[in-house]
């Protein structure tokens, strides 16, 4: 299986762990990752405004590239995934946006939005299968109690992301079980980590992150895993020393014996 692998900027700088382990695990699981040529930043928060086309053109280019090669786009970073997924949805469903996007860019093949944007976790569930992963695990994380931290961007807006039930998600818990560990359900797993508020109001961001980690710890988690570089940053910097926080790919690599 070949995917157009879009790492995004943070995975080249602050979140190298997320990227390196994702590649190693893909290799171990027989999934081929091909980076699109000359990719740029997805636009991060700017495209979320939705009404300014220029901020979304970088995402449009990635999607057009994958569409012209008839492959799905694979993402790891929650923010990149949210931007690309919403962009693909709007290209498909909003003719005005689609026409403008094509008018701005001179593509050989016009972009239609008929391209799947798949998150690495969805790939593990739907392409590889958690049962297969279970079989390929060489160092099962038996007895380890892990809290899944979803944050905001993977799940919402629910209709556009189509990632999992946005109110009662289960995919990361299933992932944790596949690694042989025990998932811990805690009430703040879908709540915001504080996001970019940390730049303006650090005490508020600290409160948000601490609430998440303290709740996970109280319910018995020994560590927390996430797919989002910003969540990891906030939980580590603002969450105190409550619990260790890892990228989900790091634990996958450990279990598959490729760390």
């Amino acid at each position, binding site marked *: 299986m070949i995917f157009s692998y879009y790492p995004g900027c943070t995975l080249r700088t602050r979140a190298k762990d997320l990227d390196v382990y994702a590649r190693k695990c893909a290799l171990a699981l027989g999934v081929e990752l091909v980076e699109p040529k000359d990719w740029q930043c997805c636009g991060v928060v700017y495209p979320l405004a939705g009404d300014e086309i220029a901020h979304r053109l970088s995402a449009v280019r990635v999607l057009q590239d994958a569409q012209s090669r008839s492959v799905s786009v694979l993402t790891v970073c929650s923010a990149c995934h949210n931007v690309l997924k919403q962009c693909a949805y709007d290209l498909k469903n909003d003719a005005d946006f689609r026409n403008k996007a094509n008018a701005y860019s001179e593509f050989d093949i016009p972009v239609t939005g008929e391209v799947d944007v798949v998150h690495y976790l969805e790939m593990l569930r739907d392409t590889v299968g958690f049962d297969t992963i279970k079989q390929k695990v060489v160092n099962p994380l038996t007895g380890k109690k892990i809290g899944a931290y979803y944050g905001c961007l993977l799940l919402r807006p*629910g*209709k556009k992301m189509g990632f999992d039930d*946005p*109110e*009662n998600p289960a995919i990361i818990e299933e992932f944790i079980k596949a690694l042989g560990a025990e998932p811990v*359900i805690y*009430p*703040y797993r*879908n*709540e915001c980590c504080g996001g970019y508020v940390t730049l303006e109001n650090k005490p508020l961001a600290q409160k948000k992150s601490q609430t998440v980690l303290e*709740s996970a710890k*109280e*319910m*018995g988690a020994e560590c927390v895993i996430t797919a989002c570089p910003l969540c990891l940053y906030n939980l580590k910097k603002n969450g105190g020393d409550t619990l260790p926080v890892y990228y989900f790919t790091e634990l996958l690599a450990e279990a598959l014996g490729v760390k």
Partner: protein
Amino acid sequence: MQRIGVFVCHCGTNIAGTVDVKTVAEMLGKEPGVVFSTDYQYMCSEAGQTLIQDAIKEHNLGGVVICSCSPRMHEQTFRKACAKAGLNPYMVEVANIREQCSWIHKDVAEGTEKAVILGRAAIAKVHLNAPLTAGESPVVKRALVIGGGIAGMQTALDIADAGFEVDIVEKNATIGGKMAQIDKTFPTLDCSACILTPKMVDCAQHEKINIYAYSEVEDVKGFVGNFSVAIRKKARYVDETKCTGCGICTEKCPVKNIPNEFNMGMDNRRSIYIPFAQAVPKIATIDPNTCNKLKTGKCGVCSKVCGAGAIDYTQKDEIIRREYGAIVVATGFNMIDMTKFDEFGYAQSKDVITSLEFERLTNAAGPTGGTLLRPSDGKHPHTIVFVQCCGSRSTTENGKPYCSKICCMYTAKHAMLTREKYPDTDVYVFYIDVRTPGKNFDEFYRRAVEQYGVHYVKGMVGKVAPRADGTLHVQASDLLAGEQLHIDADLVVLAGAIEPDKSARGLATKLTASMDTNDFFTEAHPKLRPVESPTAGVFLSGVCQGPKDIPETVAQAGAAASKVIGLLVKDKLTCNPCVAQSDELLCNGCSGCEHVCPYGAITYETKEFMQFDRSMKPRRVASVNPAVCQGCGACTVTCPSGAMDLKGFSNRQIMAEVDAICK
């Protein structure tokens, strides 16, 4: 050419405000065939109707055009008025210059021009109108009530007391509905079962009422006065004529872990069950999805213990077809799924419950025998938080935009009863607004606040987080104090939004009755015909039409019954004469019309037709049953050869209208 009179209505300023009615009357007076044209302030008033009648006689009018409101509003009024003056009522046309003109235009010149065009189209049509005479169809003197909750039961009892036969179809194993699950009723706090169960018994014992419990409506054919309904009587695997309701089977059945629906899944029932002690009919039912005997062929305990020999594992669903003159929909409601709201933690803690679950926890026949105990550990809760508007008045994709109407009152009831029975318990109620209009309702709510010391806090709960020690951390806003609250609660009760029962949508399709975007049945007129569906002969009772409490439901049930009685006392109904007819010479026998007809009014027959050489040749042609045809016109637009035509709305008439508009 007809002698036509034109009557332009001002409707106060409703029309005259945006349409120059004098000019309209003057312009239309110049149209071919128009011999009289005038305007008047209120054409529907008695004086206005007299004006029309006098003009018909004085000018010997053969056709009348009334430029006024929508024909849905007053077409009948004007037809009757003209009929009194000796004119065939189908020689009257209404040009809608209010809803389709004055109300949507702001510019007088534009509005006037459009009103003239609409009037001209109606004049063109009247020229081609022909007098029509309505036929008659008989009325089957029996009513069907779909749903056996308090709404359906009250409707059935009222109809039956008037002397007509009524059948109740209830999809559950017993009638009673939601009211049977409720502990006490506001604002008088009388016991729900004590006032409901006698009514259930009345229904069962009434000689005019027949109950089809554990049954569903399969399909509906026919029309007002002559519905033909197929009812699926689901297999109970118990012979109704033999079962005595002794309940031995429900104690001996080895499958013990089936969540008990009547107690909202808070305790278990057996695979063979009687929903509750006062069930009507009190007959055991085997749940085929969990019964060992039906699934694997091994067991048969219930059959062995049944003294009456009522168990019959070979029983099959039975389809019963019956005729009815009228149908009442009383399908009721359910609470929306609270797991859709992650912030309330309903899926994460057993101690976050819905209000209906709370009713069962305080009911003497409930899983705890009426003692309020936490579902998780069976201990008394000392701090209880009630959250109102969980999904009501919500614009999120999981919520409902409307107010569920009953929650403010039942939450006040829950809070008050809790404080009375357990004075050591702290009770909080979070609300957006407290809405208690109704007789003795606001007094009731104030009693909860002032006499019972319930903490009412204006603001919503943002998060319910279960803790490791089992307490529930509630984070909420107090909007009046402008601060955030943190409460450690033992029990959280969610007043979830109510929505129409899931079966309602499928039923609406079968009945061709319309629904709104929330799946509530639409009434024929929101103010003036609130218990009738726009589909003739279909009536609405209870929450299927919109949220309401028990007193309102009972009132509406009675109103629906009186409408049904008004229909059933008639021996014959006047048919709509605007029915389809087929021109046999043009019909090519394609069956297109037969396929699109929603009423099954069209059949094909083979007839002999003369050829050019005078020989006779058989040909298949369509034929319309005028008693069944409802005049929808689907066949006329389907017919490729133009053989199908609708009386009163012929192809020629419609084309004449279009021509007049485009002139």
